């Protein structure tokens, strides 16, 4: 598990540390150069000073003029005066055994008795002497080291402090995430209200928006599931309640008339339960069927006739079939098409009053067909809901199973056909349009 806080902490600390290290290197190099230059200048000046004393003939004073300090940096400078014939004329007290001086005038690094020296030599041809002033390179290095250590020592205290501040700062910076996490963790399992995003930082807002969007979707899906469960429970349990009540009435009835009537109601109820069971099994079969099994050429007109013949039509309802539908052929599963047409037809019959008409028409270029009834139609906001299982539109009687349009819709999906429901524009009633789909467009009606 990765912690954002830990990761940011490591990154920030490493970056700060690296910056600090760079600064130390920079200061070290920079100080060293500056120090070398300052010390070199001092060497040069000291050499000139000694030389001017030599020039004025006061050689014995040279030794006394040598700087003398007692702080660990004592005897920084050593001075030697050599005559051209190789005789040591004078030297300061801290001067090394070997010769500091060199042949030419100017700066040089020399190794004397295993110790590195920085030397400045002045060659005085008039007096016949060489004046050499030098200091130990070891001392110089120590000076730079002490300087840098002086810089690093406080850093050793500051770095942990900085680390702690970064850690705390990250904690504060990430607190909106912790707040949201706490809020979600404290919720009930079915609390899908969106999380308030008023005072969240802009970086967290997209996450929150996505989360709230997800909450919304889950809530909708759950409500949908609850609705379907509720509808199904109602459709399945109400007939059972009717059966049981009627059976108890038949048992308790003291007169034959009541008993016979109750038994007749039981028979009616069993018939309806049988139909419901058939529809449920049909739906289960459709659900289990793999999509687009299209291996037959189907005569739409013949299937429609078969579907219409299978339905009992109450007296007074007129059924009209467009002759253009005869001979239209599509490829697909015959049973699926039969289920679509039969359930649409049953639905139209159930909602059309006596003296009404049900009309089947073919669409132009035979790309589909259309069914129009003269029933009450369906409220616009319910058009998309009536194809859900067990959904009953407002104001409909409980005569149907609540599954007819669901079956038609699922079967249409299996055939890759499009089933659309709409209210008729200029007339009372529902229009169901079945489009055979792009694959079927232009399916040529076979002229017989």
């Amino acid at each position, binding site marked *: 598990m990765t912690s954002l806080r830990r990761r940011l902490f490591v990154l920030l600390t490493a970056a700060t540390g690296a910056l600090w290290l760079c600064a130390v290197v920079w200061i070290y190099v920079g100080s060293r150069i500056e120090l070398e230059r300052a010390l070199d200048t001092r060497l040069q000046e000291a050499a000139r000073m000694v030389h001017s004393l030599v020039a004025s003939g006061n050689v014995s004073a040279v030794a006394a003029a040598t700087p003398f300090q007692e702080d660990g940096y004592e005897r920084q400078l050593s001075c030697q005066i050599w005559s051209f014939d190789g005789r040591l004329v004078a030297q300061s007290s801290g001067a090394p055994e070997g010769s500091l001086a060199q042949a030419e005038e100017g700066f040089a690094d020399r190794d004397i008795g295993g110790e590195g020296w920085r030397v400045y030599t002045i060659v005085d041809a008039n007096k016949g002497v060489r004046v050499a002033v030098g200091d130990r390179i070891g001392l110089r290095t120590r000076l730079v080291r002490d300087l840098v250590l002086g810089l690093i020592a406080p850093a050793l205290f500051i770095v942990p402090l900085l680390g702690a501040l970064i850690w705390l700062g990250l904690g504060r910076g990430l607190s909106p995430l912790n707040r949201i996490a706490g809020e979600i963790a404290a919720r009930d399992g079915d609390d899908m209200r969106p999380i308030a995003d008023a005072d969240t930082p802009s970086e967290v807002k997209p996450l929150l928006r996505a989360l709230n969007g997800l909450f919304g979707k889950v809530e909708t899906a759950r409500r949908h599931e609850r609705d379907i469960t*509720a*509808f199904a*429970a*109602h*459709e*399945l*349990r*109400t*007939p*059972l*309640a*009717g*059966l*049981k*009540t*009627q059976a*108890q*009435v038949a048992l*308790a*009835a003291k007169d034959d008339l*009541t008993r016979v*009537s*109750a038994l007749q*109601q039981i028979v*009616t*109820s069993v018939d*309806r339960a049988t139909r419901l069971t058939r529809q449920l099994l049909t739906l289960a079969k459709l659900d289990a069927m793999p999509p687009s099994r299209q291996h037959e050429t189907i005569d739409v007109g013949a299937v429609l006739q078969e579907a219409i013949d299978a339905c009992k039509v109450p007296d007074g309802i007129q059924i009209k079939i467009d002759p253009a539908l005869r001979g239209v052929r599509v490829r697909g599963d015959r049973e699926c098409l039969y289920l679509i047409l039969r359930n649409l037809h049953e639905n139209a019959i159930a909602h059309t009053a006596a003296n009404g008409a049900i009309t089947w028409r073919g669409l132009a270029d035979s790309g589909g067909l259309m069914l129009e009834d003269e029933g009450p139609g369906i409220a616009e906001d319910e058009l998309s809901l009536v194809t859900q299982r067990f959904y*009953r539109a*407002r*104001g*409909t*009687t*409980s005569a149907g199973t609540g599954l007819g349009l669901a079956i038609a819709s699922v079967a249409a999906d299996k055939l890759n056909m499009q089933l659309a429901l709409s209210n008729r524009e200029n007339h009372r009633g529902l229009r169901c349009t079945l489009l055979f789909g792009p694959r079927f467009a232009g399916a040529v009606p076979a002229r017989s």
Partner: protein
Amino acid sequence: MRILVLEDDPVLADGLRVGLRLAGWTVDAVASCSEALAALATARFDAIVLDLMLPDGSGLDVLVEMRSAGDTTPVVLLTALDEISDRIKGLDAGADDYLGKPFDLDELAARIRAVARRKNGRADPVLRAAGIVLDPAGLRAMVDDKEIPLSRREFAVLSALMERPGIIRSRSELEDRLYGWQDEIESNAVEVHIHNLRTKVGRSKIETVRGLGYRLRVPSP
């Protein structure tokens, strides 16, 4: 008692109408919320049996509208949803009791008796007054410890009088209790039943208050 049943399934509605009549009550059945509201506006019921899913809305809407209008008639909900949250929702909307489908007809009758009893402020399931004991569950009547046979309608008239002893029940009130919308009322039916009752329970126990109605005569203490 007169019961209103709101149920849209024709078989179940018929079963309830006939079955609750067997429990000694007058039953009116309606199949939609709008019919139920119309029924409630025109007649007085002693209890209501309410289905939840109806073609024009939810039975809960009817319940809420009733309760907000101050109607205190006891309501028993019938529903296919039996999750606890649904039960709580129904009871909190103002229902007095709750039965999940499918249910037992005798249990429904017992629950209706219970809520009606509580509505009338009684705890005793048996009605006792003027030496008469009436058992609504068993549809039995005892006068001075002797059981007397009563017809369904005689029983209904007697229990109306015994629910509030000493209080006058008008003729139309009694007719409301005896006849649903589908029943034909004979013009002197109540008088006939009262007459028959008097011969069975004792002439002096039921008093006619001229022009107002009838009441059970309670011996003054």
